[in-house]
């Protein structure tokens, strides 16, 4: 076992949502966006009115989309709101059943050849679960061409309060170990780490026992944003991913999420695509929970289950630091969603209009070691080139700077604004 930490960042003193992952009842209608990954949208291969089965292919493309329920297609639309803003094509299905027609196969994933496994991973439409949702097969191939030597399984819940990884580590140990084995095999490497956030000594010992011989356990200090791949790689291997556009693969490491590893194991074992996703629902809800949710379930259904009493101000997909605020509750849970964080109207962030007092707190917490106050003030007045000379593009938008700023300056807002303006000028 080894321990790891990062410079900068914030130690949140928030408990992670605990409790077993409950299965959320399937709603009466699901919406499946035809793009739940980084890349181009799939093409719908079903028509309105058509009946579909659980696991049936409904969108074909680089990362295929499968029906997660049985039922009737009620709509095939080109314009459905995306969690990032803008629109994407989507398919609505009225739910008639939620069970698989036949039993899944019971293969031994470790016996599959690397190519067979990759094939299934691609066909099952697996992505590396998180807001970026990189297509997994593509990611693995990229790592192979880069000659990656080290695999890091990211079992650290990035956002404060999210408890999915923490819970999966308790509930799915076998699948995790299996998933790591398979991934090592597919990547053809021997060196693997399982990174987890420090928890109770007992939990750590059990996990260490379970993965011994397969991966080395790395325990990170409970510091946000150590769960971002860049920082995890630095904390574990000491190598810095080149900024601004480098990837962990550039320094010989591939980082794959914990839940992704589990989904690899499940998909290979049963030869079925994933139909559900574990998420944490917390913030201003009556019962914060870890839930297993059918992909395509609208947020509204999830929130009704957890109970919301007060006036909701913000609905955030992801978490409080890097999450994306949503306009409406029609948005479904997709492969990109790890958590839903709800805020009351009274809890919204304030913008004070005060000036920077040069306290340097933002500098101290910035994990990218930037000078956020200078970058942001240049962006604010439209001096984007100057901002870039202070490495504006390095910023990972983790939000640490704006979180600590005592003047309540919306630093990340200005930074994002600057980045978007530069992009526009380049075009």
């Amino acid at each position: 076992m080894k321990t790891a930490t990062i410079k900068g960042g914030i130690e949140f003193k928030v408990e992670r949502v605990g409790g077993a992952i409950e299965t959320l009842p399937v709603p009466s209608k699901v919406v499946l966006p035809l793009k739940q990954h980084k890349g181009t949208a799939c093409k719908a291969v079903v028509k309105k009115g058509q009946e579909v089965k659980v696991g049936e292919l409904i969108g074909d493309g680089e990362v295929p989309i499968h029906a997660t329920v049985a039922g009737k297609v009620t709509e095939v639309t080109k314009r459905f709101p995306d969690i990032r803003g803008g629109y994407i094509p989507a398919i609505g299905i009225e739910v008639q059943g939620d069970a698989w027609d036949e039993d899944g196969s019971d293969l031994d994933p470790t016996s599959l050849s690397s190519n067979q496994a990759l094939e299934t991973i691609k066909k099952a439409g697996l992505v590396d679960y998180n807001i970026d949702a990189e297509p997994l097969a593509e990611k693995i191939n990229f790592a192979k061409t880069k000659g990656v030597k080290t695999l890091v399984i990211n079992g650290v819940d990035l956002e404060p309060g999210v408890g999915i990884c923490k819970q999966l580590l308790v509930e799915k140990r076998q699948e995790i170990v299996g998933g790591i084995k398979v991934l090592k095999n597919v990547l053809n490497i021997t060196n693997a780490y399982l990174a987890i956030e420090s928890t109770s000594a007992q939990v750590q010992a059990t996990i260490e026992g379970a993965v011994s011989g397969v991966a080395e356990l790395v325990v990170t200090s409970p510091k946000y944003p150590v769960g971002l791949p860049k920082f995890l790689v630095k904390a574990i291997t000491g190598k810095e991913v080149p900024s601004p556009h480098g990837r962990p693969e550039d320094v010989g490491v591939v980082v794959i999420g914990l839940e992704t590893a589990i989904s690899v194991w499940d998909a290979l074992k049963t030869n079925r695509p994933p139909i559900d996703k574990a998420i944490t629902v917390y913030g201003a809800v009556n019962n914060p929970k870890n839930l297993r949710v059918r992909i395509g379930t609208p947020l509204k259904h999830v929130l009704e289950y957890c109970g919301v009493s007060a006036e909701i101000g913000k609905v955030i997909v992801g978490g409080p630091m890097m999450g994306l605020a949503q306009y409406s509750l029609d948005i479904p849970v997709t492969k990109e969603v790890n958590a839903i964080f709800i805020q009351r109207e009274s809890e919204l962030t304030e913008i004070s209009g005060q000036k920077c007092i040069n306290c340097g707190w933002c500098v101290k917490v910035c994990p990218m070691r930037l000078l956020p106050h200078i970058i942001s003030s240049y962006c604010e007045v439209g001096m984007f080139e100057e901002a870039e000379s202070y490495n504006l593009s390095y910023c990972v938008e983790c939000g640490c700077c704006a979180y600590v700023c005592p003047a309540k300056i919306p630093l990340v807002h200005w930074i994002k604004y600057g980045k978007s303006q530069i992009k526009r000028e380049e075009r």
Partner: protein
Amino acid sequence: MKDKGFVVSVGPHIQGRESIPRIVYGVVIAILPAIIAGVYFFKMEAVKVIVAALVSAIVFDALLQKLICKKVDLTNGHALLMGLLFATIMPIGVPWWAVAAGVFVGLLVGEYVYGGFGNNPFNPVIVGWAALKLSYPGYLSVASSVLGVLKLEGISAIVEDYGYFSDAYGVENWSTLGGKLKLLGKILLGWKAGAWGDHLFGCVGCICALAILIGAAFLFIKRYISWYAPVGFLATILFFSLVFYKGDKQYLYPFVLIQLFSGSTLLAAFFFVTDFATTPFTGLGMFIFGVMAGLVTMLGRLWGKWVDPVWFAILVANAFTPLIDRFVRPKPFGRVKSSV
């Protein structure tokens, strides 16, 4: 439950609890022990200075806010802090109108001409002090502002006057550890009228080292100040007082104690070289700033004419802040050396 029309904005969606008013009031609380000690030691004389500083700070702050056409807002505690900090570095006996003049110049020249709190290059409190020092040197003369002790004509004078310790504290000998500790304790607790007559003299907030340290501990616990600048500052003072001490060996110990624990040193270390606006924003920069302020202080104390050049030293270091911030910068994460 409504299902549409929620607020959409970019993250982070939460903010830390700290805010500027909270920090300002935090520093106000931290300075209170020193103020209380001042009242305890100097009685009415301290009260006069404190009241003059407070009232004038509040009045002038309101006035200046009005002048630059802002809505007058005194709830941020800012005027309160200015008044209290100014009082701490004033010797007793300064007439109320001089205190008021200092506060006014400090606020106007030190702060408002730069557009207010946060933009000012020099510490406004010390700017006010400097104005008084230039115009009415008599009130801030050597004898009045020294290290919190009375009539010393220069650091060298202390060397001859160690009799003070036996007279005022009853500490005759500090060659043993017990003696050393006893002397340290006495110095921490504060100066006493003793060897030099009946009347205790000094600055309102510099008289009791312990009170300042209590306030400093509070600031550290709250993380309103970091260790970089105070350590750089105090370490430099320690280094100079050890290396360049020229007097009799047996007086080295009290000499060092006075350099470090005389009120003005500690007050500067925890309340002035840690100021946000006028000091660098990186850790290393803060350290360098502290070293610089310590250096000027000791140059002045050991070889200069001023006995207590601490405030002056901070102004000098303030002037270097932009330069330090220019050259001391963290290396961004993952920066690849470009071939250009």
